[in-house]
């Protein structure tokens, strides 16, 4: 009877987009991620959950080498994107981040026009040959970010003048303008009201048709709503990783159950 729940709209590609093996992360002497193995599925939403300081954001930032920007941070182990080692010497982190886009906790549009916010990435990566192509990329990205109708008449207005929820969708539009394969989202809704949150969640569900989405969230209900796979981190360990339906109805590790039912923080 309960098993039937798991069949509904849970079709996944089952292809592996990102494969991490034996990943350790240190901040100076602090061992933040401990020997994590995980395989993230293509065109699915994977949620990372866990209490503050469990390492979920740290691990997320390994996937597009954002941790390179922190001097004391040391990453070891293997992370492959479509079979390529993203920590190989010949990989340019800037090019990598065009393939693995990121959306942050606080909406952070550039202090530029709405148009320029989205056009910036494609311009520096040379994705458009002329203005017409760039216009097309901007419109497509904003449409995909489900904000086009709200901003199409004021593309020259500053991005910072939008509401918080609109700013976040603008940032998602900006992230997908470089045609990434993976979207990393670090608490994308924590600064948004419930309506804006619902809009972003709806957007995430649409985005998984085209992208592999990895989302870090403190809201367990959000993880349950938007993801197909959930990974629970605790004290730097990946405690349990599996289908979201299973994690939230019948987790196998008692630490997972204690966390999702609100017994440990």
């Amino acid at each position, binding site marked *: 009877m309960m098993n039937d729940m798991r069949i509904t709209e849970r079709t996944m590609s089952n292809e592996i987009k990102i494969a991490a093996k034996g990943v350790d992360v240190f901040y100076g002497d602090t061992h933040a991620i401990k020997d994590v193995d995980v395989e993230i599925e293509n065109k699915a939403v994977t949620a990372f959950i866990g209490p503050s300081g469990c390492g979920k954001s740290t691990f997320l930032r390994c996937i597009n080498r954002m941790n390179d920007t922190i001097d004391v941070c040391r990453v070891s182990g293997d992370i492959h994107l479509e079979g390529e080692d993203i920590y190989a010497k010949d990989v340019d982190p800037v090019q990598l981040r065009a393939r693995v886009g990121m959306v942050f906790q606080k909406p952070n549009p550039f202090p530029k026009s709405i148009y320029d916010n989205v056009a910036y990435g494609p311009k520096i990566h040379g994705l458009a040959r002329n203005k017409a192509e760039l216009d097309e990329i901007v419109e497509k990205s904003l449409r995909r970010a489900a904000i086009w109708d709200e901003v199409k008449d004021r593309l020259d207005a500053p991005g910072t003048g939008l509401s918080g929820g609109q700013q976040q969708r603008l940032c998602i539009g900006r992230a997908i303008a470089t045609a990434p394969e993976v979207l990393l989202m670090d608490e994308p809704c924590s600064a948004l009201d419930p309506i804006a949150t619902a809009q972003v969640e709806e957007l995430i569900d649409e985005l998984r048709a085209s992208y592999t989405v990895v989302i870090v969230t403190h809201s367990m209900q959000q993880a349950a709503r938007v993801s197909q796979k959930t990974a629970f981190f605790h004290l730097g360990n990946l405690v349990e990783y599996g289908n979201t339906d299973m994690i*939230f109805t019948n987790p196998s590790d008692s*630490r997972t159950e204690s966390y999702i*039912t*609100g*017994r440990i923080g």
Partner: protein
Amino acid sequence: MQDQHIASAFDRDLEGIQALIMKMGGMVETAISDASRALDMRDTELAEIVRKNDKAVDALEEEVVAEVARVIAVRAPTAGDLRTVLTVLKISANLERVGDYAKNLAKRTSVLSEMPMINGSGGSIRRMSKSVNLMLKDALDAYIQRDIDLAADVRQRDAEIDQMYNALFREFLTHMMEDPRNITACMHLHFIAKNLERMGDHVTSIAEQVIYLVTGEMPDEDREKKDRTAYVGTPDGA
């Protein structure tokens, strides 16, 4: 796993709805034993009390449903907590049905006490109702103790109830064939036996909820079933 929620009010909510279930279970156990005793002693006053008390069981079920709805809305329970509220909801429905059957037994007692006794049936029905009541007590104990072995045992014991019902079915047929004046009483007694058999099914369902609560999975449908009365009168079922 940690026993207690960070939000202690959540623990109180869950304890509260489980306490309602136990209260309901206690009332239903009393209803079964009182209804059975009323039948045995031809005590129409006691039968009347059983009928009246069923309203309180129904009211408790409504209270459980309202509380479960509130807990789901406010706490959004997951995993074991989710299974707790789901099983509470189902068990309360099972108990309500068992209560109804006990009430029906009491109603028939008022009619039967005006009729001549049917030889030998009293003891069999008494034994059957005792077994059902013991199953119910064990199912509720299994629930509170989260004891899946006891729950599995309760499930298996339903076959004994089915067998008692089979035997009574044949006994009543014999009485009716012997003397048509027995038909009315035997029909009432047969419904009583049937109701007790159905109580056993609901108690079995409670035991299955215990297994689901603890393991997250419903038990396989492999237990023995002994109710063969559907085939009586066919060449195979004779």
